């Protein structure tokens, strides 16, 4: 009776199913849906903070980072993720309105210190601008902001003028009545 079991064991031994992987030299094939370390497209991130609000473990913080797109992200705040707390649930990715935050197949995060596993925007960013581009964009943003400010000022001025005119008109009509 027991001989049969030995036969099965031998069969398994001879047929040699390779199970052990030579990690870390050989990694297993991960599917496209894999939830690993995040990736942030800094060109499209608008800094809305939706990921911060949804995170169940409160591991995301918005920090200032200069190689983003100031035309979209006015305060230049981008997510920084503490992987010591992250449980890779993927809720932040689901909630991202511009789909700039995604998860990659990379999962190797170990570090010597606690600070090593806090990844800021610079570590997870893709498509970040070069210094010149960043300066140019900052300039553009400054001009845009100034123009907006001017427009606003002009609008305020126009409004004020209109209000004054209306007031005058009122006074004028009042005078006429008298």
């Amino acid at each position, binding site marked *: *009776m*027991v001989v049969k079991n030995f036969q099965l064991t031998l069969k*398994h031994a001879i047929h040699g199913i390779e199970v052990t992987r030579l990690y870390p030299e050989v990694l297993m094939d991960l*599917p496209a849906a894999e939830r690993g370390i995040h990736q942030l497209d800094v060109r499209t991130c608008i800094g809305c903070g939706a990921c911060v609000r*949804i995170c169940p473990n409160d591991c995301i913080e918005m920090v200032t980072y200069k190689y983003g797109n100031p035309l979209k992200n006015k305060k230049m705040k981008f997510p920084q993720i503490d992987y010591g707390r992250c449980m890779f649930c993927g809720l932040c990715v689901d909630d991202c309105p511009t789909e700039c935050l995604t998860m990659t197949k990379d999962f190797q995060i170990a570090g010597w210190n606690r600070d090593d596993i806090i990844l800021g925007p610079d570590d997870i960013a893709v498509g970040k601008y070069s210094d010149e581009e960043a300066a140019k964009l900052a300039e553009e943003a400054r001009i845009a902001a100034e123009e907006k400010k001017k427009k606003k000022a002009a609008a305020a001025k126009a409004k004020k003028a209109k209000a004054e005119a209306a007031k005058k008109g009122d006074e004028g009509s009042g005078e006429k009545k008298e």
Partner: protein
Amino acid sequence: MTTANDVLSALQSAFPGAIQEFRVEADNRLWATVDPNKIVEICEFLRDEQDFDHYSGAAGVDKIDEALFEVTEILASHGAHPVVALLKVKTPRDAPSVKSLTDLFWNANWYEREIWEMFGINFEDHPGLYPLLLVDELVGSWPWRKDFKGYPDYNTNERVLEIINPDGYAEYKISPTEAEIEAGTVPETRPEYPTFREREIMELETESEMILHLGPQHAIVPGPFMLDLKVDGERVKKAYLDVGYIHKGIEKILENRTYIQGIPITDRMCYLAALSNNEAFCGAIERLMEIEVPERAQYIRVILEELSRIQSHLLGTGEFLSLIGGVTYSPFQWMIIDREETVSCIESVTGARITHSFIRPGGVRNDLPDGFAEMTRSALKTVVDKTNEYKELFLSDSMYEMRMAGIGVLSPEEARRLGVSGPPLRASDTPYDMRREDPILVYPDLDFDVISRKEGDSKARVEVRLDEIIESCHIVEQCLDQIPGGPIQEKVPKKIKPNPGEAYYRVEDPRGEMGIFLVSDGTDKPVKVKVRGPVFAYFQALPPLLEGAYVADVVAIAGSMDACTSEVDR
């Protein structure tokens, strides 16, 4: 077939005036608020006259606005009819006391102990109200009440008093401040009770008896729990079980998270059944929001839950067989190899291997990837072939037969009385399966058998699991053939706010009946989530099952239940 309306009319005619409020949610759900003085009589009537022989659990709810506590008793039937009766008993908040149901239903014991230690609701005539999950320091502060304000911080060290005892070891004592006592954070007087160790030593009668400790950290147990055996020679005279070593307070955590944020937390109750836990939680939310899941999403859920059942049974069985000493072969490694492929199939959809966080209220997170059907079919073929091989192997092994057959026999009546569910119940000639009794998703459209065995011993329990693997493969194959196209997510608001009310949703976990009792008040956070886990019921049934067994068989009996401590403690 009896429906909820029939049960309600029978109750109203038998107990005029005792049913204060009622709501018939569906043909199989009856909600009723009953007179606290008559709860025992009503339950007795339901058990004896209406076949409600399955006591499924109890949940406490703190209604702080109305100065009330509510205890909801959940009663169901072992296959006579599909009605679940949820009877609510109200009790004032200042002197909470409810009549105990332990005389009627043996397994009410632990559920009532849990409610007592968490809410401070006294159960009259309970045989032993001792803490179950909490540490001794917290007993008496009633942590699940809504006005619980926390506990002194162990980490700041500010109020920790270091005392060097005569042996030279340092002991740390935390003395609460006056203000904390006044605020009710720290109980002024704690309930007096003998500890777990004292209780078992009290029961030692003769010189020849002794207590044998298995656990809490023992090589043979999958999670930390303490099983103490009172032995006389080689026989177990009585067993005592202490749980709560990894109590995480998940039910309280869920009250402080939004519904969406709660989904990853439910994974952590039992990582082998993460998808079923997600399903139970999201299903309860869907009941309250009254939304229908798109058909494709339902199929995806069924496929993944069945794959999850396969991998859970493979791991559970393999682990158990290595515990009893798979003598001439090592099925654990073989089953792990089979399981890898199944887990990879799940991972290709969900993106994670064990904690999936995949199901969402009204749908699922991702669609199936390209090539999923072929990948799964080839994985399932391996699983079916290998499982048949294991069955043949066990049948031919005389040593396996000697260790397993006739060991830990649970008769059908005993199994029902002890309140177990899932494979151990089905191995005892009771084909009770939530997929049939309380059909959800597309299970009614699928063709599958409920596996059962007549013997009720350890061997039958393993056989049921192995057969269920094959049956699950059959279900998945049907789903892969039938799955329609279409959307995978129903439109739901960005902020999920279910309608005020209560829902009870049951799914068939790999281990048995998993129910979520959810109370909502219309905000984005739940008021109360009660997890009725299957392993909690197994664990409670373990001491009576072990009585009279040989010490050498304890592992064969306890292991064949396929327990998961993490879910017991939650």
